[in-house]
């Protein structure tokens, strides 16, 4: 936007310069002819002082103008480099955001991500908290196209955090063909899911049932004693564990992060 303004200024000065140079030429010409006419002198005298000064310092004015242009060019260059650097910085930030956010989530436990540093030695040293009884209810589901009969063998278990417990599900294949199933689980309430630790179960791996076969599927789990310290869990008395079985197709894997 400044550009046309500047241009107009430039052109105006250019015209003035041109006018001055032409008058100078004319005056010189008159003087050469010895004509130093009064009109010429009058003309000269009439022109305002500032024009005179300007015509006298035309070269310095040109230099100043050149300097100004150089200045503008330099300023434009620095501004452009700053903008380009900011752009590159933004792109870099957007790439760096992915691992940074993951670290942040792990540190704060936001979004239900598993907190790093959960090890199995914890099971050996944990102490059951006797005064906090939690009811764990069990639920079983199958996908619509899955023909297994899948149900829990107990409706609920009362336990305390820090105590390992065993629960059973039963699955039966009523068809005449072997069926391979794969299951996943869900814990409600969601925030309690981070305290629900399974030592061993039957999920995330393909389980094959022969025709008309029935098996018991155990789940060995415990609730982390830190559950008692969490203020958000203070009013949680019931945790529901829900398993869902899907039919496994060849080469299909459930999208479980970090599990091979």
């Amino acid at each position, binding site marked *: 936007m400044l550009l046309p303004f500047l241009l107009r200024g430039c052109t105006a000065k250019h015209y003035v310069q041109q006018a001055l140079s032409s008058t100078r030429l004319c005056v010189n010409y008159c003087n050469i002819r010895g004509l130093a006419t009064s009109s010429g002198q009058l003309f000269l005298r009439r022109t305002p002082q500032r024009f005179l000064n300007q015509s006298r310092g035309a070269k310095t004015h040109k230099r100043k103008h050149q300097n100004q242009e150089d200045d503008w060019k330099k300023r434009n260059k620095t501004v452009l480099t700053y903008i380009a650097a900011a752009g590159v910085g933004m792109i870099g930030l957007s790439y760096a955001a992915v691992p940074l956010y993951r670290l942040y989530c792990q540190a704060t436990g936001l979004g*239900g991500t598993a907190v790093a540093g959960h090890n199995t030695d914890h099971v050996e040293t944990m102490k059951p908290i006797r005064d906090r009884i939690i009811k764990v209810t069990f639920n079983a589901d199958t996908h619509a196209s899955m023909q297994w009969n899948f149900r829990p063998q107990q409706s609920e278990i009362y336990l305390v955090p820090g105590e390992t417990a065993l629960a*059973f599900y039963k699955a039966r294949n009523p068809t005449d063909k072997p069926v391979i199933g794969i299951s996943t689980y869900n814990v409600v309430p969601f925030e309690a899911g981070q305290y629900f630790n399974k030592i061993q179960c039957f*999920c995330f791996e393909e389980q094959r049932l022969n025709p008309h076969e029935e098996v018991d599927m155990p789940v060995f789990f415990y609730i982390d004693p830190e559950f008692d310290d969490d203020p958000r869990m203070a009013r949680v008395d019931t945790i529901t564990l829900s398993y869902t079985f899907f039919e496994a197709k060849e080469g299909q894997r459930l999208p479980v992060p970090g599990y091979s």
Partner: protein
Amino acid sequence: MSTAMNFGSKSFRPRPPDKGAFPLDHFGECKSFKETYMRCLRESHFDNSRCREESKEYLECRMDRQLMAKEPFEKLGFKDLMEKPAEENKAE
């Protein structure tokens, strides 16, 4: 599952089990132990703390029949059950 569209709300992320998956008991080798455990649970109104001995026996059965990796029971949270027989032995 974890496809809730509400921004910022916690969603559940399933985690793999610590020691992997139980191999299926196709031949029902530990079925009797399971039945004992379920009976105990029903009698104690599904109180887990009263049936820990039976659950330990079921896991022992699995370990003996190669249906579970052998591990000391302290690592499976049965430390209190292992200490009791030691005390009893000392008392005797």
